[in-house]
């Protein structure tokens, strides 16, 4: 169903945004439960994700979201924060 008004649209998009970010954090936490992924830090520089984690994360995201993240995008800088991962998912077709 289409949203009834502009403000509703904004609210709806916001809800989706929160939902996607939350999902990403849940997946990251499942992958590395010893870290808090709600922190405002660079996940790669902080050692929270290594290259093998990135591979497992891509596999999980591909599977759960029914996409295939472009291999050229599988570089550490795209996985340094929940926002970067979200942008990557959007680039790869997740709405």
């Amino acid at each position: 169903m289409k949203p009834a008004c502009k403000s509703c649209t904004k609210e709806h998009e916001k809800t989706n945004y929160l939902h996607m970010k939350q999902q990403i954090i849940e997946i990251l936490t499942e992958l590395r439960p010893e870290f808090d992924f709600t922190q405002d830090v660079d996940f790669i520089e902080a050692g929270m994700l290594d290259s093998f984690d990135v591979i497992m994360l891509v596999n999980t995201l591909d599977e759960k979201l029914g996409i295939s993240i472009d291999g050229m995008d599988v570089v550490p800088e795209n996985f340094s924060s929940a926002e970067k991962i979200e942008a990557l998912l959007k680039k790869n077709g997740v709405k």
Partner: protein
Amino acid sequence: MSLKFTYHNKRICGILTVLPQREVLFEEEMDNYNFSPAKSMKLKLAMGFNKHRIVDENTNVSDLAVFGINYLLNNQLIKKEDISALILVTQSPEHFLPATSNIIQGKADLGTDMLCMDINQGCGGFVIGLMQAYSLLEQQEIKKVLLINADVLSHKVSKRDRNSYPLVGDAACLTVVERSETPETIHAVVNMDGRGASAIQIPAGGFKMPGTPETAEVKEDENGNFRSLENLVMKGDEVFNFVQTKVPPMIEELLKIAGKTTDEIDYYFFHQPNKFMLNKLADKIGVPREKMPSNVVENFGNASGATIPTAVSFNLGDVALTHSYEVCFSGFGIGLTWAAIVQKLEKLKFNEIIYY
């Protein structure tokens, strides 16, 4: 843009894959790696770590190769007098000199009226070797070329290197190449970039850095892998990025040259670094994953230039004796090298796996 090659009236006659009897399961080696068991098991699924075939410490390339040659001769799959050239593609030479191809020729008691050559190539070695075989067959004196892709790099990979050891495999593949009666055209493209030479290397043991007690010392790297300077080291991230960036456009270029669409190719037999990388390549090139087999690492390990013919032997088996296919071979890695061939894989005379 790639360097382009075209060949006419050449074919692969048969493929024999020689694998070590010894099979080691990933679970048996998991404790060597600096990972929790749970993480190791997740990686097993993502990368296709499962089991690999590893030679014992006394087995080398010539042992596997001569075992294969004797099998071909004893089963009348080739005649000694028809072997005009032996091309060995390996990065596991038995000595600095002489060439291991000469050692194989001597041990197999082949004729002296032939050419032996070693080519130092790794993951791209099947394509490079095949191109060399096709070029030699332009000479009318050359009857058949025996291309051997063989490596025993498990000797040079640290057992405590989780980047490389779970993946490494040993194998020798013997591919007999000859002239064809059918007027098929074979298209090939090649690229090399030595600026990336350090992405996969064995730093010590050659003339530049001879082996010493210091180079043999095992140290831990920043990722928790343990290896010495005499072990193979692979910068996994760099290699992955290079492959994903360079290979898809090369395949697109080659198909355009060959006048084929992606759908017209029956199989994409690519080098087998790991399942994840191959799945990403298939998705990027836009071919169904089942057309690009990715099951060599999980069953046998990555034996460098031998993985493409192993994939043909393992996935097609006897079916290749009664059917012909349009195939795309592509090898990429050490060098850096990336190369590919599109050709018809005519009905083979033999296509099997034997165990040493």
